[in-house]
């Protein structure tokens, strides 16, 4: 047992911790932008709605390497945003865990956005009208009526986004690389171990990842069921 601990579990804690850090940050970002975009897309008077919807869905269908390449072009050392970030905040996203989080955020974003749009469209418009006629401004209508009524759908999208962010591989590899201890998340570590023929390690990481994902799904299922009926 101690041998097993020192050989497999302890080294796995680093990529596990990194994976959680990256995916939770990514999910927070995807949630913030996804709810906003989903809400905007659910408004019928939104101009160019279907075009914007297609644009928001793009990360879901594009190969992760394509997304990774776009990110590299935009946020790389010579990219528009990359230069800006470097000059303003002195940070670079290339080969950093923040870069991995950005990649995971972009691929997870459509899942929140889609779920949020559907959920907001399901909110009875009369309820929003009623709130307006009772003196609520648009921000208040959103916070007091639309979001509380749509939150289940938003939450289920968020859970999917978290799962997607945890499994992110391609785009992360492109922008953040595969640096053990710095940007090597679980999925990258598994690839690394399998490539190098470290079968025990690969198998252990695979089982660990599966367990974390199962726990996550169970927790989200329980969470959704426990919420009060609306």
């Amino acid at each position, binding site marked *: 047992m101690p041998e097993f601990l020192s050989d497999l579990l302890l080294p796995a804690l680093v990529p596990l911790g990194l994976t959680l850090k990256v995916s939770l940050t990514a999910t927070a970002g995807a949630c913030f932008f996804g709810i906003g975009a989903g809400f905007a897309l659910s408004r019928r008077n939104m101009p160019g709605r279907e075009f914007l919807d297609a644009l928001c869905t793009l990360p879901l269908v594009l190969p992760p390497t394509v997304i990774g390449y776009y990110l590299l072009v935009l946020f790389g050392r010579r990219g528009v945003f990359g230069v800006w970030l470097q000059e303003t905040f002195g940070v670079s996203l290339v080969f950093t865990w923040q870069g991995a989080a950005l990649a995971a955020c972009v691929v997870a974003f459509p899942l929140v956005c889609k779920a949020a749009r559907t959920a907001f469209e399901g909110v*009875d418009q*009369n*309820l929003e*009208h*009623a*709130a*307006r*006629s*009772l*003196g*609520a*401004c648009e*921000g*208040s209508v959103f*916070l*007091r*009526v639309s979001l*509380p*009524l749509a939150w289940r759908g938003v939450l289920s999208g968020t859970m999917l986004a978290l799962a997607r962010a945890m499994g992110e591989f391609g785009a992360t590899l492109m922008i953040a690389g595969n640096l053990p201890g710095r940007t090597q998340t679980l999925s990258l570590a598994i690839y690394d171990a399998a490539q190098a023929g470290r079968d025990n390690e690969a198998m252990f990481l695979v089982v660990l990842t599966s367990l974390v994902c199962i726990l996550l799904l169970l927790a989200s299922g329980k969470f959704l069921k426990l919420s009060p*009926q*609306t």
Partner: protein
Amino acid sequence: MALRLEIRKTLRSEAQEFELSVSFESEGRSIVLFGPSGSGKTLTLRAVAGLMAPDAGRIELDGRCLFDAERGLDVPARERGVGLMFQDYALFPHLSVAHNVGFGLGRGLLGRLDAAARARVAELLDLAGLTDLAEASPNRLSGGQRQRVALLRALARSPHALLLDEPFSALDPLLRARMRREVRTMCQALGTPTLLITHDPEDVAEFGGTVVLYDQGRVRRVEAFADGPEGGADARELVLGERFSAYG
């Protein structure tokens, strides 16, 4: 309530086109828009509430201009100060009865209720005999109780006028007669003028006042009677005697 209204609105769908072009004015405390379904009554009410912008025209309530296409004026619904009671009540399913009633009294983005607002809610709930249900979810209420909650919610802000969109049509007949009276007397007690939409002659009999007859997007006739049941009987005779093209 002094309501002057003159609006035009064209609605297009694939199959047909509907043109609403109406104008009327009234000084009474009760106005009833009467006509068959699809004659443009609800559209008119939504225009007054600020939920639908007409293509052209003007709406004036108690001397205050709410909409004027020529001047490009369209006061947002939240600033119009009119209460609205929906056909399906549109109670907030995620809020308790008390929070539904107090919705319009809340302050700030999140609608916090201060002590004065909570006292007002308690007073209104007491008035309607709903105190015991204050913490209940609207989903647990009967049809009549829901209607009372919707009424209190609309009246809590002391609106300049209360707009009622076929408020009694979803109730069974016995309850309907009772709620009709209850709603009218409550509005009277609180001094709130009403604009009621209906296709039920019995509603006309209860509310009386100015009766505006709608037919296929036009105002066919405007007659003023005494407010309430006193004028209501004559008003009912008027609408029963009218022949609407929708009914052949």
